[in-house]
């Protein structure tokens, strides 16, 4: 076997091995998207009920709560960016990070200091490599977040919001969150949302309920609100994490699908080249034999 042919065959083998890996990752992600989507929809009843309860309290009481009051003179803002722990997901993490860069630039333009909170190793590495300040980061659960993870993150953010930004270096006046919205298997959008100060937004999935009844509060409206609002934030953060996880799987599936397709193309063109090389080798051998035979017969005829 000629050297050229051997090189082609080796490359085909290695591309084939890569293709097997990307194909496997594609299939794994495809099955996990469905699971992640189910978790998003399993969490909506809770989110809907919570939204109803919060809007009920907000409608029937004039209770002021620190989480709903905007600072008159905002000094510092917190930004939470949700990305993936692992790569191989195309532009998934980098588009969330880019969205974050845009938001941070905008906040700085407004004269605010920015504290960044990161979820996912990809964002952490990006920030560390560029020597940027990270206030806090969490990782290890990006593809399968639990409510406990969301609670841990929101607890820290809520306490940062409640602290006074003017005197406390950790205190913030605003909280923004960047996550990737799962629109469909093929579309995922990085989104920026302001979480705090809180505006109670009806979720789109809430059925029209008509007028809310006059509620009695137990023990009283203020305490109910105190207990409700942190849960509300947690559930929003949890929803953002779940959607991001679904988006991550979808992005990875798509990236791995195109990697598999590219590997197939590469194998095809390498096979063509290998065939041509083999043919050239055969042709060369034939012409060498014919040439050799010619030379022999002509030398024989010369001696006669």
């Amino acid at each position, binding site marked *: 076997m000629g050297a050229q042919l051997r090189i082609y065959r080796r490359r085909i083998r290695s591309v084939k091995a890569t293709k097997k890996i990307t194909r496997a990752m594609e299939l794994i992600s495809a099955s996990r998207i469905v699971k992640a989507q189910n*978790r998003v929809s*399993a*969490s909506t*009843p*809770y989110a809907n*009920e*919570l939204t*109803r*309860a919060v809007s*009920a*309290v907000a409608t029937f009481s004039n209770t002021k709560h620190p989480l709903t009051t905007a600072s008159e003179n905002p000094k510092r803002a917190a930004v939470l960016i949700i990305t993936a722990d692992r790569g191989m997901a195309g532009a998934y993490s980098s588009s969330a990070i880019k969205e974050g860069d845009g938001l941070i630039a905008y906040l700085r333009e407004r004269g605010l200091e920015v504290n960044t909170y990161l979820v996912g190793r990809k964002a952490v590495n990006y920030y560390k490599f560029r020597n940027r300040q990270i206030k806090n980061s969490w990782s290890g659960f990006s593809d399968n977040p*639990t*409510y406990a993870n*969301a609670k841990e993150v929101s607890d820290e953010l809520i306490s940062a919001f409640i602290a006074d930004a003017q005197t406390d270096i950790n205190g913030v006046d605003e909280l923004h969150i960047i996550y990737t919205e799962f629109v469909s298997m093929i579309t995922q959008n990085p989104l920026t949302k302001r979480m705090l100060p809180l505006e109670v937004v009806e979720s789109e999935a809430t059925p029209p309920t008509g007028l*809310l*009844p*006059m*509620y*009695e*509060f*137990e*023990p009283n409206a203020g*305490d*109910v609100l105190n*207990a*409700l609002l942190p*849960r509300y934030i*947690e*559930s929003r953060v*949890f929803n953002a994490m779940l959607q991001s996880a679904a988006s991550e799987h979808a992005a990875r599936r798509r990236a791995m699908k195109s990697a598999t397709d590219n590997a197939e193309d590469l194998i095809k063109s390498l096979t063509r080249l290998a065939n041509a090389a083999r043919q050239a080798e055969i042709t060369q051998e034939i012409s060498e034999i014919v040439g050799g035979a010619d030379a022999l017969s002509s030398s024989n005829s010369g001696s006669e």
Partner: protein
Amino acid sequence: MNSLKVELVSPEKRVWSGEATQISARTLDGDLGILPGHTPLLGVLVDGLVSIKGVDGTISEFNVHGGFLSVAKDRVSILGESTD
């Protein structure tokens, strides 16, 4: 007889849903029983047992750690931060 439409949900999933005749839960102010026709109410739950008596008479009990209970027009939703 009237019945209550009950949903017991945790952040990760819907734990129990269906029709019930009686519910008891523990709020910040103490134990609370709910029968059909209860006045609209929003209460904060403390860690404790929530028991739901279904229309068929079976009693289901859940450990709820923190959460809320809202009652409106015979519709009861119990939101537990974690339930088991």
